[in-house]
């Protein structure tokens, strides 16, 4: 369990902190994530994207639940920037770091390849944890348009990142 934590907790913290904008709350989410991971370990299905995907999915869902329950979505959305923040961490081993930077660069390129309104929609949904309804209210776009942008953007990202999935 310690091994899994060492490997994946930094990603869980990064996404939780991005959504909640608060280190203490984000660290709470990391704790909850790994306790849930422990409880649900027998349900893990490696065919669905590996352990890192599972960790990130749990951490993100929990962070969004907390964000929505604390009703601070509006405040966070106002503070949201167009691009994700980058926070330094202790230096990992060179191989892991190279692999991470490669993935980071591929994801950044894939996001950059989206039409601007789709990219903005994904940023608000994924990195700021807003629901489609909240995005529609924030951007002034019709809800149906937001839904279509989410669907098209994910479809396009899937095609752009598919080499990484295999």
């Amino acid at each position, binding site marked *: 369990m310690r091994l899994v934590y060492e490997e994946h907790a930094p990603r869980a913290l990064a996404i939780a902190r991005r959504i909640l904008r608060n280190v203490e709350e984000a660290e709470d989410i990391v704790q909850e994530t790994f306790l849930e991971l422990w409880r649900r370990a027998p349900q893990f299905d490696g065919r669905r994207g590996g352990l890192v995907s599972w960790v990130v999915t749990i951490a993100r869902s929990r962070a969004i639940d907390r964000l929505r329950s604390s009703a601070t979505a509006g405040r966070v959305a106002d503070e949201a920037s167009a691009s*994700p923040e980058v926070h330094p961490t202790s230096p990992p081993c060179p191989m892991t770091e190279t692999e*991470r930077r490669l993935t980071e660069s591929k994801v950044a390129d894939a996001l950059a390849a989206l039409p601007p309104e789709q990219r903005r929609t994904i940023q608000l949904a994924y990195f700021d944890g807003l629901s489609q309804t909240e995005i529609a209210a924030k951007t002034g776009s019709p809800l149906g348009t937001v839904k279509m942008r989410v669907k098209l953007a994910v479809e396009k990202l899937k095609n752009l990142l598919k080499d990484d999935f295999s």
Partner: protein
Amino acid sequence: MTCDEFKERAAAFALVALDDGERDACARHLASALPHLGCREAAAEAELVAAHLGAALAPERPAPHVWREIADRLYAARGGAVEAHEGIHAGIDEGTRRRSLYHLCGWLVAAALVGLYLYNTPLDHRLLQMLSTHGGHLVAGH
């Protein structure tokens, strides 16, 4: 909810961008035992995209107390059987396994070098003794 309706929402479901009611309905549909028409595949693909998006953020190492608290809670919950839990170890992904293999190879090479050194040291010592003995005879012969 039908399978088509679910698939229409799969991307937003994976991004946790649905409102609570729709999100619950999607979760119920996905968990239902009905025969599905590609719902699980659509959800898995969208979740994979969502998980990859997380790579756009630089990882941040949590403070040391975070792991200590997790370990304490797991210890309390399982009566100290934390490391005995096999399920999570089965989930260690390819990267972790590869690194473990590299570590194992490193240890094997180190062990082989030590073994070789230990094996050769007495031999070298004997050779030196023989050389000095024969060398001494040769010098005496001259």
